[in-house]
């Protein structure tokens, strides 16, 4: 269709051409150039001499024909021009070269350019041109170079470009073009360079491209091309560069690529190519760069440097390659400089053949399954700058020869199983900038010689077994930016000279056994942004000069023994995290912390802080975590804190705070944890708390709260833990609690709650840890619905005025491990399944009977037979028990005598024997015998495991 419309135009143009030729001077061009100029904005004045008084052939950027009659060239590249490309360009009919590249031109490429029938070269790249590539460009029959890339051109490549049979260069890269690559591309028999990189082209690579036999460069990287790489590409014998990276190509790599005998650069990274690497690629004797990384290639590496003599870069990372490294991957006097094989499934030991590869500069074998020792001949790789072997299973010692690798800049050995010490020879590496040895099994002290590596910028020794102290000469590392020694067994103080590592930005010394106080030289670390010292034994007050460190953003000094004021840590207004949990800090909370507007985590719990919560904290609107628990804070929870509505954790428990529980807490929509327990709060539980719909844990226990439990508590449908015990709460337990379906722990004990236990509690079927309603004034019967709490492990209803019988349904609480119904007004028979609980679970009631209490024998005659059976059993048990006790006493005495005689200790196998004994008992009785040991309250899930850890 398009062509048919264009035909009359062609006719018109040829007529025009004849006219111009006959006219024969540049005057027409002059007026036309003036019109072009008028549509350009020229801030640099490049077009200043484009005026009628001056000879046109001397105008900037213009080239005239030899007879000075026609303008044949216009080059305004990089002239800072903006505005549009005027349709008036069409009047420069003799123009052969038009170069408007690297300007700020906007608008479309005018279709009128199609009239420039003499145009051979058109450069419009690097502008802001938009719109489509017009079909009329297909009329430029003489065009040899068309470069319009790096614009904002959209739409598809017009198939009419296929008419440009003289085209040598087609550059359409870095635009927003889409659609498929037209098959007409095959008509461009003269094409040498085709660059379609970084667009949104989709569909297949047309096999017709194989007709472009002159093609030297084909780049279509960074598109959405799919399907297989056409095998016919192998016919492009002139091809030097084939760049198809970052598409969605699939299938295997065609073996025909091996025929591209001039290929220097082959890049297929970031596709979905599978299968094996074709061995035919070894025929590419000119190849310098081969990048097949980030595909799904499998099989062994069969790229042999012995045949690819010119190979410089071999990148096969991030595939599924298996096997070892072939012995002739790199031969002596090769050019191989970069070998990247990371993220594969390669295995085997470090290939000694690789050590012949003295040309090697970068070697990356990371994230594979290599194992064995690092060869001592590593120093043969004398040009190596980066040795990347992390995330393998290398073991053994670091060879001391590593000190001879004088070019080494980066040594990445983390996450292996290396043992032994860091060789002192490492100190010879004057160019070493990065040393990552973390997560190995290295031990010994950190050698002082390491501080001779004067170029070091990053040291990470995290997660080893280093002992001794931090080298006292560490201050020699003037370029050090990052020092991580976390999780070792380092002891002693921080050497004062660390303060001379003035470039230091991140310092992580956490999880060691370091001690002493922070040296005052810390004040020189003005670049310091992250400092983590947690889990050490640091002590003493902080140097006041720390206040000078204005770039601190993350501070974690938790779990140490620091004392004194925390004021020196409030100097930076860029703090994001401040965690001083579990120290001995005292004094007040500095109001200056409120200057750090980006503070998200503030944890000062478990210290000896006094005073009030600063009202300025209301400015910390980014605050997510506020933990001031376990201090000696006084005063009220100030109104200003209501601004901190991003809070998710608010822990103020175990202080001496007074006043009421603020109702504005209900506005904290993200609040997940609220702990105000063990303070002196009075007043009521505010009904507004029911609006904190994400609340998981609400703990207000051990205060002086009074009034009723608001029914709005039922709106907390995510709540896991509700603890209101030890207050002065009155009134009934609201039945709305049933809506807190996710409750696994509910404690309302030690209040003055009255009324019946709502039967709706039976709907809280996820209750697990405890239901504790003890020490209230609850009355009425125990609702039988509680028998539905199938997961409940502890039930305490003691010290109330509950009456009636224990509902038989409670006997179905098979998960129950602790039960306390004591000190109520209960009567009647205890469910038979409760017989395993101790007497103390039931004492102090009106008239309860049945095991473990007295039998209900006098009640119903029909039960007499069954009860007498029980009695028989009890007698037998008593006899067995007594005789066992006698036996045990005898055995004990004998053992004592024996021990006294032998004076030999009993090994832990003894306790093992007891263990198995207990096990057996359980098998016999099928019940937890712990219940029979009387002290029911101590038998809980936590203590049964914890003694082992403490």
């Amino acid at each position, binding site marked *: 269709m398009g062509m048919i419309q264009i035909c009359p135009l062609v006719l018109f143009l040829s007529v025009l051409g004849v006219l111009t030729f006959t006219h024969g001077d540049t005057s027409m061009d002059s007026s036309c150039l003036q019109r072009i100029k008028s549509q350009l904005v020229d801030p640099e004045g490049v077009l200043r001499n484009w005026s009628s008084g001056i000879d046109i052939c001397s105008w900037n950027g213009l080239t005239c024909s030899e007879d000075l009659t026609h303008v044949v060239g216009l080059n305004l590249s990089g002239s800072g021009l903006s505005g549009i490309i005027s349709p008036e360009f069409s009047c420069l009919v003799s123009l052969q070269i038009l170069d408007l590249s690297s300007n700020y031109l906007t608008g479309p490429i005018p279709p009128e350019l199609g009239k420039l029938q003499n145009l051979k070269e058109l450069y419009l790249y690097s502008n802001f041109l938009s719109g489509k590539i017009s079909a009329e460009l297909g009329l430029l029959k003489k065009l040899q170079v068309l470069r319009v890339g790096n614009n904002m051109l959209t739409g598809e490549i017009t198939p009419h470009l296929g008419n440009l049979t003289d085209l040598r260069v087609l550059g359409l890269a870095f635009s927003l073009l889409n659609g498929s690559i037209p098959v007409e591309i095959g008509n461009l028999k003269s094409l040498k360079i085709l660059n379609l990189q970084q667009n949104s082209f989709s569909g297949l690579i047309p096999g017709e491209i194989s007709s472009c036999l002159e093609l030297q460069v084909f780049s279509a990287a960074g598109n959405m091309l799919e399907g297989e790489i056409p095998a016919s590409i192998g016919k492009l014998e002139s091809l030097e560069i084939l760049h198809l990276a970052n598409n969605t190509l699939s299938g295997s790599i065609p073996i025909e690529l091996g025929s591209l005998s001039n290929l220097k650069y082959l890049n297929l990274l970031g596709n979905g190519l599978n299968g094996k690497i074709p061995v035919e690629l070894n025929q590419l004797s000119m190849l310098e760069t081969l990048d097949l990384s980030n595909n799904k290639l499998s099989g062994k590496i069969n790229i042999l440097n012995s045949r690819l003599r010119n190979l410089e870069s071999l990148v096969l990372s991030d595939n599924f390659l298996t096997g070892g490294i072939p012995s002739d991957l790199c031969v002596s006097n090769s050019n191989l400089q970069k070998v990247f094989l990371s993220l594969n499934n390669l295995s085997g030991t470090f290939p000694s053949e690789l050590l012949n590869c003295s040309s090697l500069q970068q070697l990356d074998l990371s994230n594979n399954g290599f194992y064995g020792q690092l060869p001592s001949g590593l120093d043969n790789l004398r040009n190596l700058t980066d040795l990347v072997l992390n995330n393998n299973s290398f073991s053994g010692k670091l060879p001391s020869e590593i000190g001879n690798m004088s070019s080494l800049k980066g040594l990445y050995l983390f996450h292996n199983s290396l043992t032994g010490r860091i060789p002192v020879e490492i100190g010879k590496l004057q160019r070493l900038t990065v040393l990552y040895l973390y997560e190995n099994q290295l031990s010994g002290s950190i050698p002082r010689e390491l501080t001779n590596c004067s170029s070091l910028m990053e040291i990470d020794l995290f997660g080893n077994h280093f002992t001794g102290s931090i080298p006292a000469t560490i201050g020699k590392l003037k370029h050090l930016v990052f020092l991580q020694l976390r*999780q070792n067994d380092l002891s002693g103080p921080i050497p004062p000279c660390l303060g001379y590592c003035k470039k230091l930005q991140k310092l992580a010394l*956490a*999880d060691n056994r370091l001690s002493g106080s922070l040296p005052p030289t810390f004040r020189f670390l003005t670049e310091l942004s992250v400092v*983590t010292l*947690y*889990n050490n034994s640091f002590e003493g007050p902080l140097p006041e000069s720390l206040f000078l460190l204005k770039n601190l953003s993350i501070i*974690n000094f*938790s779990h140490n023994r620091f004392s004194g004021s925390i004021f020196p840590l409030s100097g930076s207004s860029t703090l994001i995290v401040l*965690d001083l949990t579990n120290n001995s800090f005292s004094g007040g909370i500095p109001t200056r912390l409120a200057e750090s507007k980006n503070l998200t985590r503030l944890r000062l719990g478990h210290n000896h802080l006094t005073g009030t919560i600063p009202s300025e904290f209301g400015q910390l609107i980014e605050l997510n*975590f506020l933990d001031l628990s376990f201090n000696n804070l006084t005063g009220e929870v100030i109104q200003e804190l209501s601004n901190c509505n991003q809070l*998710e*954790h608010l822990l103020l428990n175990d202080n001496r705070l007074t006043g009421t529980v603020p109702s504005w807490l209900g506005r904290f929509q993200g609040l*997940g*944890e609220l702990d105000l327990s063990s303070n002196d709060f009075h007043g009521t539980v505010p009904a507004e708390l029911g609006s904190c719909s994400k609340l*998981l844990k609400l703990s207000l226990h051990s205060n002086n709260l009074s009034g009723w439990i608001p029914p709005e508590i039922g709106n907390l449908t995510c709540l*896991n833990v509700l603890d209101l015990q030890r207050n002065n709460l009155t009134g009934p337990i609201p039945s709305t609690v049933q809506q807190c*379906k*996710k409750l*696994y722990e509910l404690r309302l004990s030690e209040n003055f709650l009255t009324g019946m236990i709502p039967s709706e509690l039976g709907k809280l079927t*996820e209750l*697990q840890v405890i239901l504790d309603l003890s020490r209230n004034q609850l009355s009425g019967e125990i609702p039988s619905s509680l028998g539905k709490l199938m*997961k409940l492990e502890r039930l305490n209803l003691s010290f109330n005025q509950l009456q009636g019988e224990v509902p038989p349904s409670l006997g179905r609480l*098979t*998960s129950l*491990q602790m039960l306390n119904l004591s000190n109520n007004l209960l009567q009647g028979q205890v469910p038979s399944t409760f017989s395993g609980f101790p007497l103390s679970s039931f004492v102090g009631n009106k008239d309860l009977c049945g095991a473990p209490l007295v039998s209900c024998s006098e009640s119903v005659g029909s039960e007499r037979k069954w009860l007498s059976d029980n009695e028989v059993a009890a007698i037998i048990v008593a006899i067995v028990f007594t005789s066992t006790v006698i036996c045990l006493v005898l055995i004990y005495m004998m053992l004592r005598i024996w021990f006294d005689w032998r004076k030999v*200790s*009993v090994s*832990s196998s003894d306790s093992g024997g007891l263990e198995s004994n207990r*096990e057996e008992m*359980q*098998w016999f009785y*099928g019940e*937890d015998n712990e219940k029979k040991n009387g002290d029911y309250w101590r038998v809980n*899930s*936590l203590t*049964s*495991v*914890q003694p*082992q*850890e*403490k």
Partner: protein
Amino acid sequence: MALWALFLLLLLQPSFLLKSSMANLEGDALFALRRALKDPANVLQSWDPTLVNPCTWFHVTCDGDNRVTRLDLGNANLSGKLVPELGRLEHLQYLELYRNKLRGPIPKEIGALKSLLSLGLYHNNLSGPIPPSLSRLTNLKFLRLNGNSLTGRIPRDLTTLPNLKIIDVSNNDLCGSIPTTGSFYKFNERSFENNPRLKGPELMGSVNYEIGC
């Protein structure tokens, strides 16, 4: 006796210190779980792997030594698979992931959770066998796997769990017979119901309980 306890305590002390400093491993393990799960309700939003330990993550509970003891993600609209890394939470007592849409197998590594008291995976879409490794959970009291698509037989090794109080494997697709020995003698049939291919209590002395399995 007290002297001995002290001696044992001293003996255990260094290894304990070492482990407490490895607390981040637990965060990593939990974060591996987060990565494997789809979480449309954003209940795992607070799980920030850059924190020192996972103890301030919602739905995670730690003990005084910052070791994870509870994971409570019941009814949280989670889908995806369980990860073997969960086996690293060696102080975990409660693993509660019930009423979600979890699929795939129960990782055998769960058997390494030597402190586990309760394994609540009921009402999910878990498939595959009950890993025999669960028999290593010597502290386990509550094993609730009901309402999944578990297959295979009930591992005999589970009968050696000394503290097991509750087992519920009902509503699955288990086969073979129900063990009756060891701790299993006290469980009634409701713990095993609605497994169409489960053939009832095993006959002592018979070795053919795997028939039809």
